[in-house]
């Protein structure tokens, strides 16, 4: 074998070795960072049953808990984000007043997901409707399409963000059902904070869950049921 050939083989071997040494730590870090997480299951449908008879008009605990959990300012100006809000409704025909929390209803057929041009609005397999902040271009079409006004646009630079809940100026955001807590086996902050236990959170598909059985035993409503979006959030006592 000629000298040149041997040299070439040696060179190729060394190059391959060097490349492997260079890439390996990166691959290791990548797999560590990503881990082998389990994806959301389509067997699950997360939802809420809100008992409006237990919701007190002057109580704002769910809103405060949401703001703290998700790092929202809690401001109420027209440009501030409000992922959950208390609404007072008065029946025009009889004057009956009801108070209730309103947030993303996590529809089975979400209009925001239909209209989003970039697939930034999406529905997870377990029914949670989310915004991918990396894909959102800030067109606000989802805000126009949402029948519940559940979404907010980030109008200015943010500071002191909660690392679990990254947000971004120029993108749209909404209640995530505290997805970061759900994935850790916890319940959403608003449900946890409600002293009157007006917010019942759980798996609407699980025959053993409290929410499954309660939705079957008490009369509950979907808001704007006429739109047939099959919301994950239901209201009792309306």
């Amino acid at each position, binding site marked *: 074998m000629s000298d040149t050939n041997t040299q070439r083989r040696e060179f190729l071997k060394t190059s391959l070795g060097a490349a492997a040494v260079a890439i390996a730590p990166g691959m290791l870090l990548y797999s560590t960072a990503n881990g082998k997480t389990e994806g959301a299951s389509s067997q699950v449908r997360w939802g809420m049953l809100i008992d409006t008879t237990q919701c007190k008009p002057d109580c704002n605990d769910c809103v405060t808990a949401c703001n703290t959990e998700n790092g929202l300012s809690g401001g109420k100006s027209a440009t501030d984000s409000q992922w959950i809000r208390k609404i007072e409704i008065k029946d025009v025909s009889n004057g009956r007043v009801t108070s209730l929390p309103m947030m993303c209803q996590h529809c089975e057929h979400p209009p925001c997901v239909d209209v989003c041009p970039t697939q930034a609005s999406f529905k997870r397999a377990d029914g949670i409707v989310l915004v991918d902040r990396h894909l959102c271009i800030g067109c606000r079409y989802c805000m126009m399409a949402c*029948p519940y006004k559940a979404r907010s646009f980030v109008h200015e630079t943010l500071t002191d963000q909660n690392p679990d809940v990254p947000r971004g100026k120029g993108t749209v955001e909404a209640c995530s059902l505290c997805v970061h807590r759900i994935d850790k086996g916890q319940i959403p902050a608003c449900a946890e904070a409600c002293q009157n236990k007006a917010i019942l959170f759980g798996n609407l598909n699980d025959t053993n869950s409290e929410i499954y059985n309660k939705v079957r035993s008490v009369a509950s409503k979907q808001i704007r049921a006429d739109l047939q979006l099959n919301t994950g959030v239901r209201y009792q006592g309306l």
Partner: protein
Amino acid sequence: MADLSALRSMNRLFYVLLAFGGLAALGGAYAVYMMEHHGHIISGMNNQIVWGMPHVFAIFLIVAASGVLNVASIGSVFGKAIYKARAPLASLLSIAMLSGGLAVLMLDLGRPDRIIVAATHYNLTSVFAWNVVLYSGMFSLVIVYLWTMMERRMNVFNKAAGLAVFVWRFVLTTGTGLIFAFLTARQAYGSALLPPMFIVLSFAWGLAVFHVVQAVIYVWNEKKLDPEILQRKKNLLGVFVIGSLYMVATYHFTNMYFAHQHGFELFILRDGGIYPNLFWWGYVVLGNVLPLLLIYAPGLGKSKCVMAAALLVVLGAFALLYVFIIGGQAYPLNIFPGYEVSSSFADGQIASYTPSIYEFLLGFGGLAIAFIITTVSVRVLNFMPQDKPYISD
């Protein structure tokens, strides 16, 4: 020598016009920089009025860009000679206005730097995503169409390209109308009437813009438009204005028939403050009644009257779009039908909106882009309509 000095002064005027256009475009760029830097907090838009003044400008430009092609279609598809002579200018205006409108729409995004995502992550169910294809397709088609008109060897494909543009622009304006028609939950939108309404509006707005530009080009070149041609064009404008008024009236009449829409109609047409004022005075009187008078009243209808009518139609277009887009969002979303509603998030309240200077700068920046493209192109290429002695066809 007198001719030469006149030519020089025209030349100077061209650069002055270009400088004005450039300055306005620069103002738009400044607004984009400011909104990018500070966020939309410096605009008048908020979580209730999510689309504002930039969208009024952008939608006007895009709708007019489609409508102006009517002139070309009547020429290429229906074979009318006087329109055929104007097809290159109409196509140029279409490209110019589409560029301006899309620039405004894009630069108003919360993250305009991510615009490429619209191409890499495509959502088949989104009418916005469809429009990305429709707008870019229209752009390319009109360029090809222009090529078939301006390059002699390509002339054989002119008819086919003209037909393709004709079909495409109908689909495109349908797409623009569908953006609103698909918003089922909002009282102002969610009507199947909107796509055809936008198509007919585009006829009137496009022809009005075409007429203004054509008149300026004729004055610039010291030529006079054949009165016969002016007569036909002004009649066409009149018919389009009547047609669009009919569509807008039908949209409101159908709404008024539904009891659940009464509140919204009363707001837009009577109680909503600036919105009914803009609708009746801006759109109906200035944008329709006055132009129709200028076109059809005995003794009027001369070149200056038609120019004024065309300008008024454009003004009316802005008034209507403001009422439609801003007024439509200002009226509270009906989340609980049959209930009085109040909250910290403006539920049950009329949303307030004051456009900021940056929104106007961005909007005028879009107009400036259309203006610059038109002015430069008309200067360097031959877009002047070449009429043979007029014979009625």
